[in-house]
């Protein structure tokens, strides 16, 4: 159970950082 907290957190953080990287790339490349 307690390890699921860590797995859940990792997935959440992975999702957020990939979104942030996509946003950065879109803004910086002038795509958006």
């Amino acid at each position, binding site marked *: 159970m307690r390890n699921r907290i860590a797995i859940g957190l*990792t997935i959440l*953080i992975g999702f957020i950082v990939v979104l*942030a990287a996509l946003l*950065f790339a879109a803004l910086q490349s002038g*795509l958006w």
Partner: protein
Amino acid sequence: MSMQRTKQIIQGIFWILVYLLLTLLPVVVMFLPPRPPGREFVREFSVALGFVGMAMMAIQFALTARFRAIKAPYGADVVYFFHRQVSILAFLLILIHPILLFVTSIHPVSILNMFAPDTPWRARFAVTATLAMAALMVMALWRKPLKIEYTRWRIWHGILASAAVAFAMLHILGVNWYVNTPWKQVLWGLYSIFWVGLLFYTRVFKPFMLLRKPYEVLKVEAERGNSWSLYLKPIRHAGMQFQPGQFAWITAWDSPFKDSEHPFSFSAAPASDGSLRFTIKELGDFTRRIKEMQPGQRVYVDGPFGAFSIDRHPHAFGYVFIAGGVGITPMVSMLHSLAQHGDTRPHLLIYGGKDLQSLTLREEIEQLKARLNLRVVEVLEKAPADWQGETGFINRALLERALPAERGKNRMEIFICGPKPMMDAVEAALAAMGVFAGDFHSERFDLV
């Protein structure tokens, strides 16, 4: 939901936000002016992933540092497991970074050949960092099948991690695109020095300081309630200054360089000769071995920690201590300290236990009663036939009976320590009775 739980959840969310902030900081800094001209989407995405992966790898150092504040809301086990899980994520992000550049032919794959004369140094640094990271991952995920001994593994883990971050940093400086201004270079330099410094502090400096201030076992005495009192004395140093009610982390049978410490409350008042006493209940592998400790054996004590102390609330009209089982230890430490100072204020101890035999340090509390203005209410789940005291659990009805009628704000400071269900029940009962939340203090030992 108890106050403590709410506080833990808020602290938990706070540290997740700090983590995200630190992870995304590089991307924010990249975006700040002066900003280099934009390039292809894939390249920018790949670079952002590289920077984020790098930040995550750097933060790994802090996750295993001995910061009690970070570990407290989750438990150290969850933090270690997260460290392991998130390293896989960070490694994936770092691997995707060059792969995206190769599949879109932004760079030729031949750039990976470190020994080709025309390979730029920035690529050599990147390959070295990635190899160090790969070795780090393999050794960490398959340490046991690879039969790598723990202490040796720990040393290599630190060396490879530091090397990976250092070479990744050289790669970033070598590319010199998003670190195009002196202030960004200084910031990145400080960022990496900070993380490596942290590793050095927690893994080398702090254990080294503990090693220089060892303690030796004077004696181990059996107590009621399957518990043992461990008496320690400092070897050629003055010991530590602690406040009664605080706790420390004990390392025994191992070097302080191994991360195998366990938290226990002091059960005596601070002594002028620096000697310490801990009273420890047999609950797990480590605590079951306390009784095997031999006089003269070396142990290491890292502390003190915690805010659970009467010394933080010196102006109270009196103190109420509510203890369950071995939760009595910090209370006894505080009572001894009060007796030492000849305290005359009225104090109350409510002490709950399964049966008479489980009331650890009961005789000592009897003796303290003679030296203090102390009333003791013992509450037994299973009382003997001739029992005159309270029975059952510490609940609201009992608290209404036992607590002094005059308990206006800041007059009585209430300290609670015991098993989780007991603490939840007592905290809820006190809140329902209208006791001010700031007037009661809890200590929980389920953080490890």
